């Protein structure tokens, strides 16, 4: 199914492009909004992503649907990062680095079962840009702090502290929401 679409897109079949778009746009929109909550900005990012996707597909070695899916998500995430860097929207809140190092790892975990994906997505989009970006890269893209530091041109420690505060904030908000549900 997807491999046929990919093949047709290689042949510049515009209908196939439209089908591929329809197939993945919901999920890729979610990914994009997770990095770039503003709708106009997200539109730019997604537009650039799809242009890149369609133009890169002919050079892509198709290795199955799962990998293709991962590739699509990565393109969107990269475009989003590019956007955030170009826009200089990444303001990292530098805080006392010792604090996160001493942070109690046994902090009570929030009850993520009781929160809906939409609520969770909304909470992530409410995070400050710096927190959100690092959280996205570390948690969702499985980057290490070293990689994130290279990618964003920040110190490893900054990446780790951003993540720490992002998690603190998120945990608190999830708890607030789940408390409210009781």
């Amino acid at each position, binding site marked *: 199914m997807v491999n046929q679409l990919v093949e047709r897109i290689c042949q510049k079949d*515009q*209908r196939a*492009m*439209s089908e591929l*778009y*329809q197939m993945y*746009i*919901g*999920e*890729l*929109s*979610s990914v994009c*909004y*997770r990095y770039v909550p*503003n*709708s*106009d*900005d*997200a*539109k*730019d990012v*997604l*537009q650039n992503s*799809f*242009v890149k996707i*369609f*133009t890169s597909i002919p050079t892509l070695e198709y290795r199955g649907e799962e990998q293709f899916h991962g590739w699509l998500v990565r393109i969107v995430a990269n475009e989003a990062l590019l956007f955030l860097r170009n826009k200089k929207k990444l303001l990292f809140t530098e805080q006392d680095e010792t604090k996160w190092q001493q942070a109690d*790892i046994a902090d009570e*975990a*929030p009850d*993520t*079962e009781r*929160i809906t*994906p*939409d609520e*969770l*997505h909304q909470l992530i989009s409410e995070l400050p840009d710096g927190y959100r970006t690092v959280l996205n890269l*570390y*948690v*969702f893209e499985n980057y290490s702090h070293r990689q994130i530091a290279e990618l964003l041109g920040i110190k490893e420690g900054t990446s780790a502290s951003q993540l720490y505060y992002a*998690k603190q904030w*998120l*945990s608190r908000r999830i708890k607030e929401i789940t408390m409210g549900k009781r």
Partner: protein
Amino acid sequence: MKEDWTKQIKQKLEGHQMTPPAGLWEGISNEMNLEPKPAPKSAMIRRWYWAAAAAVLAIVGFFAFYQFDDSEPQLVANNEQTAVEKTANQPSAIEEKPIIEKPVITVSQKPTHLALTTRTHQAEPIVTETNETESMQEIAEENNLQETTEYQQQETPEATEAPVLATTEKKRTYLPDVVEPDVTSSKSEATSKWSLGLNGSNGLLMASNNYANDMNAITISRFYNDANSNGLSNSSFTSDLSDYSNSNIQNSVISKHHLPIRFGLSLQYQLNPSLALNSGISYSYLVSDFNMAYNQSNSYTQKLRYLGVPLGVSWKLWQTGGFSLYLTGGALIEKCISAYMSDDKMDSQPWQLSINASAGAEYHITRQFGLYLEPSLGYYFDDNSSIEHYYKEHPLAPSIQFGLRLYLK
């Protein structure tokens, strides 16, 4: 060393979907020079099917009332009485031609929500005074056509500003408020030579006989407009309801002009078996989006609304059975009645003059209904304003119109 709960949130958002930003596919196809997305197009077409069905219903309703009124003796009495009043110093009765109520369409910005209501009201009656000695019996024979069907498609304030469109109050009168004695013709002519048209919709369906009028520009071919050239790049007959034109102006403003939407109502008078005159009133809606290439958050939507009067001639080439072929030519003069850039009102409200020619094919479903299809080509003169709009990009605009014509007995 990730805590479990962050893994959980990752899992939670796996496969999560969100509604894409508006206009995304348009942007992509614009960038990639793609055809518009088939799926929304078909959805749009379905909308036009609904619009077409609504138009047919309205006309059928119109006729139902029309026939009903015919058999109402009170109508005649009323008519006589008022006729006498209006011509107090003329002892004999005045023959009234059929009083025709024009179907009125009010235009919605969002044709997706189409509500059909049937109302009665009076608009631009066509009245003639003829021989004063005509008998009362003849008056009785006359059709007092009072009913109007009206499409009301979520009226916009702009739409109701139009003088004709504004008469939406429910009233039933059997004589026009204004008698126009200079519009005269014999009874037999009066009852057979007029036809009415209902125009509505953007694109596929033109429920209208307004064929001197370059109605909705459905682009048969798409135009791509780059910095240096305008080119007709695709000659396939598509009914794309969106046109993507992309002009890269020096300061990198990307403009996208949506297809003009035009609605109206029209009137046709048959001069002789092959020649007919057309006029009417039209309402056009032009939307353009402007985006700054490097700062997409700076985007503007321009909305222009025009009221216009078409004038034209049609010439029947051939007719057999219920089928006829004809050519039309005409002009349309339009005045911008409202111009907005995003939420700001623009000062300039230019006039727009255009000429157009079309070839039409019409099929008579019944003696009184004609369904037609008209590919046409219009030329829109430069309005000498600073406003950028569809017709500036495409002064020569091909379009295709669908419509319904109603021939009065």
